[in-house]
């Protein structure tokens, strides 16, 4: 009898079961654990209170990103500059003290490798196919781009993983998102994932693990896949997976923490067997034709509130569901938009290019391409470019991208989460309107009262040079 065909998710799951609990809940082994300053202090405190140690510091990596300011971090002599906000400074100091006390490897705030956890993990080769990777951050889903079963966890789970290197998990249902065809000119991975969230809704993937399949993804760069997997959580699914392929192996080969030599060859041979078997069953399947996707923007306060840039702000009454109608009305009120208004007429004053969704080198290249030879519009009050890591920043500088941005009037910053969330000095002011490459347009996400429009890097650049939400396809020739 031939074995039952399994999905990628089921293969990774089966390989990590330590023991089975009641009703299908399993104790799973965690191969990789990323730790950052915001969601870990209470976990370490819990360990200390219970007199517990970290079981496998060697499988753990800590880096600060969320509340580090993105302004200069060292003075002329290379000495670390203090952080003004005492609470942020306290949280960073707590992380440094905790990693020292528990013997956890970490990347220092002023190290060249520092960056956003979800940029650093893949970049260092810490993220590997077929592993289970967790982090106290919902965008951990990003690492699924490399074929890791990766998901965000709460602080109690962070403590649990630190103490036991395992997690109790109920088995998720599986969902196939199949996209075929070519993305149109000016359309990126970001537009595709926004389109998908619009299609299935922010709760569309709840209880599911998504696997991205189809030739659109086969042709997509690893950077693009990271963008897609990253926002899987905005569709309600905790993880989004891509089967590892040649592009994955090429991306990982030679990364500092990836296996080398013979170990590399053995690893690759194993990774090739991870792909979903022919005939494996998915509980749900969604199909998208890539040619349907246009450059996409959000108009509301939920990532499912999307429209093509050529569209209009919707009429709340056009939604069938009364709860959705009420939500849309509230959202438009918050966003200061009028139903029927053309999206391309919406003026913006803030631009944010960054976040774990879109701060890798490919993203910066795409934005620079639009900005090259242009200047930001006179109405723009702040335009930030925040590379996802120190290594991305150096690479961009080697390619001269920093000059393209600064000559156009952008601020070129140090790596970190920055204006993705209002917890460090980079914020959008109340009623300020921002074209942002981040992942959440929630009420107050970029600062109290801030109005966020989620877009791709090229679209953020287009907004910067025109002072409004603009169709990037009108700024460049195919």
């Amino acid at each position, binding site marked *: 009898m031939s074995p039952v065909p399994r999905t990628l998710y089921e293969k990774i799951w089966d390989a990590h079961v330590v023991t089975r609990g009641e009703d299908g*809940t399993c104790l799973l082994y965690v191969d990789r654990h990323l730790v950052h300053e915001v969601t870990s202090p*209470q976990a370490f405190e819990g360990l200390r209170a219970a007199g517990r140690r970290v079981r496998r510091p060697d499988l753990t990596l800590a880096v600060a990103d*969320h509340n580090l300011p993105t302004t200069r971090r060292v003075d002329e002599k290379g000495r670390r500059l203090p952080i003004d906000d005492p609470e942020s400074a306290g949280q960073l100091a707590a992380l440094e003290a905790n990693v020292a006390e528990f013997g956890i490897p970490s990347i220092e705030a002023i190290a060249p490798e520092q960056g956003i956890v979800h940029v650093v993990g893949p970049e260092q080769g810490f993220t590997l196919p077929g592993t289970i990777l967790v982090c106290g951050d919902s965008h951990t889903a990003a690492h699924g781009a490399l074929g890791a079963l990766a998901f965000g*966890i709460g*602080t109690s789970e962070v403590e649990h993983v630190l103490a036991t290197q395992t997690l*109790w998990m*109920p088995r998720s249902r599986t969902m196939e998102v199949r996209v075929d065809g070519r993305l149109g000119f000016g359309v990126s991975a970001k537009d595709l994932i926004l389109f998908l969230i619009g299609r299935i809704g922010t709760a569309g993937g*709840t209880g599911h693990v998504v696997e991205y399949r189809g030739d659109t993804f086969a042709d997509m760069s690893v950077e693009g896949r990271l963008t897609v997997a990253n926002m899987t959580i905005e569709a309600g699914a905790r993880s989004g997976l891509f089967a590892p392929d040649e592009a994955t192996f090429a991306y990982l080969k030679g990364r500092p923490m990836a296996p080398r030599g013979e170990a590399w060859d053995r690893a690759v041979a194993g990774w090739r067997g991870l792909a979903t078997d022919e005939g494996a069953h998915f509980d749900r399947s969604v199909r998208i034709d890539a040619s349907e996707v246009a450059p996409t923007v959000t108009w509301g306060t*939920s990532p499912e509130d999307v429209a093509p840039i050529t569209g209009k702000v919707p009429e709340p009454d056009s939604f069938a569901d009364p709860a959705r109608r009420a939500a849309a009305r509230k959202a438009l009120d918050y966003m200061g938009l009028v139903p029927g208004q053309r999206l391309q007429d919406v003026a913006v004053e803030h631009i944010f290019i960054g976040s774990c969704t879109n701060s890798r080198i490919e993203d910066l290249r795409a934005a620079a391409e639009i900005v090259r030879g242009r200047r930001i519009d006179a109405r723009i009050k702040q335009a930030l470019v925040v590379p996802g890591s120190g290594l991305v920043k150096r690479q961009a500088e080697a390619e001269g991208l920093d000059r393209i941005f600064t000559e156009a009037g952008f601020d070129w910053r140090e790596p970190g989460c920055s204006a993705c969330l209002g917890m460090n000095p980079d914020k959008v002011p109340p009623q300020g309107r921002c074209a942002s490459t981040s992942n959440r347009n929630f009420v107050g996400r970029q600062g109290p009262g801030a109005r966020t429009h989620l877009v791709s890097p090229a679209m953020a650049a287009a907004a910067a040079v025109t002072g409004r939400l603009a169709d990037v396809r009108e700024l460049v020739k195919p």
Partner: protein
Amino acid sequence: MKALKRIHGRAIPFGRRNVDTDLIIAASHLKTVRRAGLGRHAFAAARAERGNVFDDPAFAGAPILIAGENFGCGSSREHAAWALADMGIEAVIAPSFSDIFAGNAFRNGIAAIVLPRHAVDRLLDAAWRCPLTVDLEEMIVSSPLGHRFVFAMDPFRRRCLLEGCDEIALTLSHEEAIRAYEERTGT
């Protein structure tokens, strides 16, 4: 964690759908290194609205919150569950929850109760007039007005809530299996 069997009291009829954890507790309050004290910052943006349910004296100290679909979506911040617990919330009733929030909730002694939309709508209405009871042993939400809705709950999570167990201690009792896994896989 203390055991939770029956929750009785007023229920805040918030009703909103897609309540994200940024709304429950804004990022500016995540810089704490403690778990306690977040309750007074909870729902700050919603509280800024005039006539909001949170500042209605009828619901002061209410142990139950009722919301719409997809409660707790977005950021994984457990601060959202800590803030709710700090407000005194012991049960949230909604048609659906985000997976991460549902996990964070039960680990902090908050029961995430899923009921169909029509049941939630009726409870939202009843909550203005009377207290509700959530019985985790019987798995029933009821009101003195005669409402009675049966819910289902993951048995593992329900047992943890009923017994108030320490999940890490439970896992550490599987130490042998964890070590065997590490040896078998060379991890």
